[in-house]
């Protein structure tokens, strides 16, 4: 047996789990309930200005990328629990996460 390189998968999983726990519910509360109910209005200019600012970009990226990685890693482990192991599942989970992360990064760079 040898020391594993799993930390490279696990550290962003754990970080993403914490970020998802802290921020994802309130984001869904806004986009899923408050905006549809008309309680708040997500004004294009305000959001775009936030996404223009480097710190705004970083926050938005963290709020998407880290929970996405968290989800991919956990789904892969759960698939294994259900008897679905193997490279296909691994590629599907992490591949989807990378797609989400790269799309988010590309969009933020373009904004």
């Amino acid at each position: 047996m040898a020391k594993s390189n799993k930390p490279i998968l696990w550290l962003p999983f754990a970080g993403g789990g914490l970020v998802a726990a802290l921020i994802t519910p309130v984001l869904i509360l806004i986009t899923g309930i408050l905006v549809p109910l008309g309680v708040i209005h997500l004004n294009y200019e305000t959001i775009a200005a936030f996404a223009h600012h480097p710190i705004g970009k970083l926050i938005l990226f963290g709020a998407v990328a880290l929970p996405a990685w968290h989800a991919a890693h956990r789904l892969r482990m759960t698939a294994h629990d259900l008897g679905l192991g193997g490279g296909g599942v691994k590629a599907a989970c992490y591949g989807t996460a990378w797609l989400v992360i790269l799309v988010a990064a590309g969009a933020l760079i373009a904004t």
Partner: protein
Amino acid sequence: MSRRPYVRKIERNWWLQHPRYVAYMIRELTSLFVGLYCALLAIGLVRLAQGHAAWDGFVAAFSSPPGVVFQWLCLVFAIYHSVTWFALTPKAMPLMVKGEPVPGKLIVGAHYVAWAAVSAVVLMAAGV
């Protein structure tokens, strides 16, 4: 005497055989909804980059009845994730102060305070 150990194989539906495994599976399943919502957010960022009209279309899409139903589901699972995640923090990160362990409830409580604070800041930034 002959030794002939009998090996029992774990069944595929092992997680249905005890309530605590079912609870574990639900906890793990939260990640599916967290992941799907992240994908929604990523699409939102693309629409934002595409300009005013695209953004308004995105807002209309996620405010539509199917969008809202989907997000309600996501919210339930996301909150379940938060609650289960915070509940396990004292195990992963126990604190010792002056040679005595800090009570787990305090560590969990601190996470709830942080959760409330982050939520309040985000809500204010969003214009509540």
